[in-house]
C-alpha cells in the first residue's frame, strides 16, 4: 500500500481499536515521499511501529526469501486472526521484484488459524469482553443475528463509545497485553554461526542474505561472525537481543535506512558496542560492504 494516509487511517486508527484481523503488505521503497519508487529500502521500520495515533502494539514480519514470504504471509493471517490485530508484512523491494525458486506445499499441509467465534447467544454477547484468561474477545460475524456495533471510538465491552477513564485505560492495556503476553508465540528469529561468534550481524529482510554471504567470507579469513535475523520485527525481540549482546563482543546492524531498528538494538545491548551500517540511496547493501564493516569492527575491539 503506497498511500500513507489510508495505511495510517485503517491500520493504526481503526483496525487496532476495533480489533479487525487484517494483513497489510508494505513493500518498502526509497523515500521520503515518492522518493525512489522502484528501488529498495527498509525505510518504514519505525513507520510500521509508530506511524499512528495513540498506543497500540503491532505485529510486523520481515521475510528474507520468496519461500519465506509465502510462509510468513500465512503466518501473518494466522496471527491477525488469533490476536485480532493488524499484521504488517514488511517486505523490501528487493524481494518485491525478485524471481526465485519456490516450492509450494500441498494446501492440506497448511495450518490455518481462524478467529474465535462467540459461544454466547446474541442476547448475551458482549463484543469486547474477554474470558478464560484470554485477552482476545470472540468475534461475531455481521448478518448472523449478532446485531452489534463496531466503532473506531474508544468503547466498553458492549462495543459502544465511552469516555470513561478507567474503561479507556483498561482497553488500551488489554490491546498491549494480547501481544506482550504472547511474545513466545509471535516472535521468530533465525540464528546461524552464533555458537562461537565474536561479532554478531543483526540483519533482516534481503539484507540478511548479503550478511550471510559476508559472514561466510569473514569466517574463511578467521573472523568469527554470526547472524541473528529477526523475522518478527515488531514486537522487537528485546530479551533475545539482550542475551545475544551478552555473548558477543560487538553487534553490527546493517540496514537500508539511516538507522532505525539499530535504536532498538542499542536499547537492550548494554555495554556491548553496536555499530550501524546504513545506506538509503536505493541500492542494496552488498556482502563486501558488510565484510569491510566487520573487519573494521574487529580491529577496534
Amino acid at each position, binding site marked *: 500500500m503506497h498511500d500513507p494516509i489510508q495505511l495510517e487511517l485503517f491500520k493504526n486508527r481503526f483496525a487496532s481499536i476495533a480489533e479487525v484481523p487484517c494483513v497489510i503488505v508494505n513493500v518498502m521503497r526509497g523515500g521520503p515521499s515518492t522518493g525512489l519508487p522502484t528501488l529498495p529500502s527498509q525505510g518504514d521500520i519505525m513507520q510500521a511501529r509508530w506511524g499512528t495515533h495513540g498506543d497500540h502494539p503491532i505485529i510486523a514480519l520481515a521475510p528474507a526469501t520468496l519461500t519465506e514470504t509465502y510462509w510468513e504471509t500465512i503466518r501473518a493471517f494466522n496471527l491477525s486472526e488469533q490476536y485480532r490485530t493488524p499484521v504488517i508484512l514488511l517486505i523490501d523491494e528487493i524481494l518485491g521484484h525478485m524471481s526465485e525458486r519456490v516450492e509450494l506445499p500441498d494446501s492440506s499441509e497448511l495450518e490455518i488459524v481462524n478467529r474465535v467465534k462467540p459461544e454466547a447467544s446474541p442476547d448475551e454477547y458482549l463484543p469486547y469482553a474477554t474470558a478464560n484468561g484470554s485477552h482476545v474477545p470472540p468475534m461475531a460475524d455481521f448478518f448472523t443475528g449478532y446485531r*452489534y456495533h463496531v466503532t473506531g471510538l474508544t468503547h466498553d465491552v458492549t462495543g*459502544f463509545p465511552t469516555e470513561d477513564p478507567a474503561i479507556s485505560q483498561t482497553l488500551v492495556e488489554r490491546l498491549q497485553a494480547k501481544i506482550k503476553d504472547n511474545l513466545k508465540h509471535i516472535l521468530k528469529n533465525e540464528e546461524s554461526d552464533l555458537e562461537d561468534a565474536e561479532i554478531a550481524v543483526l540483519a533482516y529482510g534481503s539484507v540478511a542474505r548479503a550478511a550471510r554471504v559476508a559472514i561466510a567470507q569473514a569466517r574463511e579469513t578467521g573472523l568469527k561472525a554470526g547472524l541473528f535475523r529477526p523475522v518478527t520485527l515488531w514486537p522487537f525481540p528485546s530479551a533475545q537481543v539482550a542475551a545475544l549482546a551478552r555473548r558477543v563482543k560487538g553487534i553490527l546492524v546493517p540496514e537500508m535506512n539511516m538507522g532505525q531498528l539499530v535504536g532498538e538494538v542499542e536499547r537492550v545491548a548494554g555495554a556491548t558496542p553496536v555499530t550501524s551500517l546504513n545506506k538509503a540511496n536505493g541500492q542494496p547493501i552488498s556482502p563486501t560492504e558488510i565484510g569491510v564493516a566487520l573487519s573494521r569492527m574487529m580491529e577496534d575491539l
Partner: protein
Amino acid sequence: MVAKMVTTSTFIPRDHVKQVVYYEEYLRNDKMPTLWCSGCGDGLVMKALIRAVDEIAWDKDSVAIVSGIGCSGRMSSYLDFNTLHTPHGRTLPYATGLKLARPDSHVIIIAGDGDALAIGGNHFLHACRRNIDLTLIIINNFIYGLTGGQFSPTTPVGSYAQTSPDGALEPTFDTAKVAIAAGATYVARSTVSNPRHISEMIKGGLAHPGMAVVEVISNCHVNFGRRNVSGEPEELILWISRQTVSQNIAQYMDDDELSGRLVVGVLQHLKERPEYVASYYQKAAEIRGAED
C-alpha cells in the same frame, strides 16, 4: 407566480398509506437520548430511514448501517442493526467490502456532506461509477457541524462559516449532479422540511438494485443557521424549504428560475445498467467454470 408556488408546495406522495411504525423496534433505546442538538435534522432522517426499512420489511439481521465521522456518524450507534462506525470519509470502502462479502445483505450508509464529498469524495465517485447495490444517504447540512462549523464542499458560496468569516469563496458541489455524472443509477433529493418525502426517497433507494444516492438537505441551525439564516431550527427549515423546488414544478421552470435552487425528487432512475456485485459473482463463476 412560479416562485410563489415553490414556497408552498413540496411534493407529497399520495400513495403513502403506511399506518403505524413502532420505532422502538428499530432503536437501541438504552442509547437515548441522542447526542444531537435539539431540533437537529439528523433525528428526522433517522426516523425517515426507520419508516423506509419498516415499509420494505427487511429482517433487521440482514441490514447493516455504515456511518462515518460527524454528527450523522453517531446514527449507527442508535439503530438496532449490524452497525459499523468507520473513520472519516471511509464509509463507502467499508460498505463495499460488506456488500461484496455478503451479497445477500442490505447495506445502508449514512454520511454528512463533509464526510461523503470532501474527505470521502473519491470513494463517492467510484462507488457511483461501479453501481454497487448500496444506499448512500448524504445528510447535507451545508457545514461541518460536529467540529465547530468549518465550510464544506456544499456550503453555499458567500455563506459564513467558522473558517469563512468573510463568506465562503469556493464554488458549491451539486451532490446529485456529481452522483449522476459519476454513474449512480438512483439519485434522489429531499429535505427535512418534508420528512414523509425523505422516507419515500430512501425507500426508492432501498428498493433499487444499484447505487442509490439520497441527498437530504438538513438543518444545522447551530453552526450554519446561526451564522447565516437563523439559529432557530424552524426558521432554518423554512429557509431550506424556500431554497428547494419540487421536480414536478421544476420541469416547467427555465434555467434562470432554477438558478440557486435545489430540485427535490427522484432525479435519476436507471434500471438497465449492470450492478457491480452481481457482475462480480457472475464473472467469478464463469472463471471457475472455465477452470473445471
